[in-house]
């Protein structure tokens, strides 16, 4: 499976550098290494979800309780979480750090992933969620740090798009 273990480690290190204690996730191919890293890390609570919207609740609870968290999800999981983002995170001004695997862009081979890619950025914009792409490992540490900083200063969700050139090696 050509998911980049090296770049997954770069992303994970960036989360750790930002003192992330809770990671919620639902399995998706591009996230497998990140989830294993979280699972093997005794300093992190990995919460495996049944559906991504739960992660909004878990992150909100962790935040109000004083813990930093991140959400790992596919873009279809982001689409699935929209009501939780609007009626919990936005309504109550809760910062969320969402790492969204950006399936369905150029190079996508799975036909079932092609539809969601076309809506991802438009929905982020409609929800007024600031987002940046992560295409190269050299961008990761700084953009994760900046994303976390903005989430906490604005008390709003932010998103980082885990893109094909970063996550996939072939």
């Amino acid at each position: 499976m050509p998911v980049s273990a090296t770049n997954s480690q770069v992303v994970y290190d960036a989360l750790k550098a930002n003192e992330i204690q809770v990671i919620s996730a639902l399995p998706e191919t591009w996230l497998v290494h990140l989830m294993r890293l979280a699972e093997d890390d005794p300093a992190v609570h990995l919460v495996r979800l049944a559906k991504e919207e739960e992660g909004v609740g878990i992150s909100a609870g962790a935040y109000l309780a004083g813990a930093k968290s991140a959400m790992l999800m596919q873009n279809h999981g982001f689409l699935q979480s929209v009501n939780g983002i609007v009626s919990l995170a936005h309504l109550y001004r809760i910062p969320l750090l969402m790492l969204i695997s950006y399936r369905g862009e150029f190079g996508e081979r799975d036909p079932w992933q092609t539809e969601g890619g076309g809506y991802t950025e438009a929905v982020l914009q409609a929800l007024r969620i600031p987002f940046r792409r992560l295409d190269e490992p050299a961008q990761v540490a700084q953009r994760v740090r900046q994303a976390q900083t903005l989430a906490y200063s604005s008390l709003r969700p932010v998103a980082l798009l885990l893109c094909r050139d970063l996550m996939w090696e072939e």
Partner: protein
Amino acid sequence: MLRIDALQAIYYRLENCVVVTIMGAVAAELQSIGHRPNFFYLQHAMGLASSMGLGIALTRPELQVVVLDGDGSVLMNLGGLTTLARYKPRNLLHVIFDNESLLSVGGFPTATSTGSDLAGIAREAGVPRTSVAHTLEDFSAAFDEALAAQTLTTIVAKVEASGPKAFVTDLPLLENRFQFQRHLRTLGKQE
């Protein structure tokens, strides 16, 4: 059993807990008994109260968390029961007030009115302690036993489909949110 009587019966025990409620009648009735800074009312995002409780319980194991949920909300996030059961936080007590109805939007019957059994669903999801309470005495006793057991518990309290006349209270949502966050921080300092 009336929900407000059930809330009244456990109210003094909630003083030392961190409480997350759902929207509608549960939030309004608990506030009518008396708001406290350790109470957070999730006034939308139906289904996510138990997920918030899990987020608090996992990160603050020294705190006893009580989630006051409802049948309509739980039915929107049945998968969340499997997530609770997967991590089994010992410090989380999940109460579901089941009035078999979406009361605040006109009283339309939910699936618990046609036989869906939320305690059974929670049990088979893997929640280690579950019970159903039909009377105030049963509910109060089950609540005390759950706190003493220090094991993830779901109590389904069967209540009548009646509630307050109004659901909007004089506590703004953001005031509640910032007060609750500050209060949890204070609890940490006392440790």
